[in-house]
């Protein structure tokens, strides 16, 4: 190991951690710690840290002193030990045991936290993109240009069956004629069904012109287009 480099001791979190480790390793009863044996081992570890040139926190040395003190006290004949109020607390090890037990509980709790942390780390919260809600939104029952085109296309297809795809340019329909017609048909305030409007159309051209007239009236806000049911019949009413 590099002599110039002092390794901060991370193997044991502190003297209590080292003591717990020794108690576990030696399989001794935490309530009846063989203090002489454990003290010897503890000091052995400190020695080893020194040999390895590890930096040892001051708390390790404080605990070493504490252990030696407890050991010396427990070696005294009973009648020379300082008197204590409670018989249970006669044992000089008691304070250390209590401290170890408390520490162990929190060390275990830290272990639980660590498991939870690992679990959480693998769970990813769903954070979706902002959904595209804005576009298709329109007042209930009203239809978009796409719906209109869609409907229009249905008319054309039906027409194609009758008409053999001939384009008759010489026919004399104008958009303004059709605007007049639609205004007349809707004058009574009765909704005009989309399919009815195109029912009389004789040619593809007439359908196209009628449709353009319809678009124009919608644009001029003369007509309202409603679709009472989704995918249902489209109806036209005067505004």
């Amino acid at each position, binding site marked *: 190991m590099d002599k110039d480099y002092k390794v901060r001791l991370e193997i044991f979190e502190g003297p209590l951690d080292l003591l717990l480790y020794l108690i576990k390793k030696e399989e001794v009863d935490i309530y009846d710690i063989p203090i002489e044996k454990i003290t010897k081992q503890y000091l052995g570890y400190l020695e080893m840290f020194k040999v390895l040139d590890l930096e040892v926190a001051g708390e390790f040395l404080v605990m070493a002193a504490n252990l030696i003190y407890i050991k010396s006290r427990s070696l005294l004949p009973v009648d020379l030990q300082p008197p204590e109020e409670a018989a249970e607390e006669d044992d000089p090890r008691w304070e250390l045991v209590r401290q170890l037990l408390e520490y162990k509980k929190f060390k275990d709790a830290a272990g639980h936290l660590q498991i939870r942390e690992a679990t959480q780390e693998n769970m*990813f*919260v*769903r*954070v*979706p*993109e*902002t*959904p*595209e*809600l*804005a*576009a*298709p*939104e*329109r007042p209930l029952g009203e239809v*978009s*240009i*796409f719906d209109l*085109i*869609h409907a229009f*296309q249905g008319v*054309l*297809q039906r027409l194609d069956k009758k008409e053999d795809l001939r*384009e008759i*340019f010489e026919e004399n*329909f*104008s*958009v*303004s004629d059709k*605007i*007049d017609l639609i205004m007349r048909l809707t004058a009574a305030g009765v909704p005009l069904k989309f399919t009815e409007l195109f029912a009389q159309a004789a040619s593809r*051209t007439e359908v*196209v*012109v009628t449709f*353009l007239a319809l*678009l*124009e009236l*919608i*644009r*001029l806000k*003369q007509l309202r287009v409603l679709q009472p049911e989704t995918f249902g019949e489209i109806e036209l009413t005067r505004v």
Partner: protein
Amino acid sequence: MTLKFVIEALLFASQKPLSPREIAGVFKSAAKEGEEDELRKALAASREAEILAALEELTADYGQMNRAFRLVEQVNGWTLVSHQDCGPWVRQLFPEAKPSRLSGPALETLAIIAYRQPIMKADIEAVRGVAVDGVVQSLLERALIRIGGRAEVPGRPLLYETTQVFLEHFGFRSLEELPNAHELRRLVLPTAAIAPAEPPVAAPLTASTEEPVTEPEIPTDGPE
């Protein structure tokens, strides 16, 4: 744990649509991270066709389960979306999204561009019968359309076309998915007079409506 299971988790946690290629990339980088892991190795060997098959299986699964979400393929990958029937409630979670509704004229203009792209402004105006500068500008700002080139007519006016944002906005994968795209693209619509095409089908809009409809005239200047 199966390919499908892991793909589900990915779709779930991803903040953007995922393509089979991106999913394959995820498998590869996870395998690089843990080379000894058998499952990581196995998944990294998945071909894109297998990933695609798993995505299609998941789509079918969700459909059958009758759940409030769907797996859909969009232009830039696969993504989970909430069921459209729940829109009225889901929308409440995004109050700020409300004002971005497209206006009627904007939608009309967009429809014309979508079906007739690339198209110059004069031709849009010939169909709609009104000036569309403002509307085209706002569609450009929303990146729903873009300038796709210039028409080879006098003045070389700009041509407009729809963008990927347009496709995403309406949930189309391609322009082929536009309703009746094929038929409607062939439809003869009025064009600006400069167009060397067939005579327009529709007669001039000179009807008895209050708003004067400007009939496009001889060589109009394209947008500057």
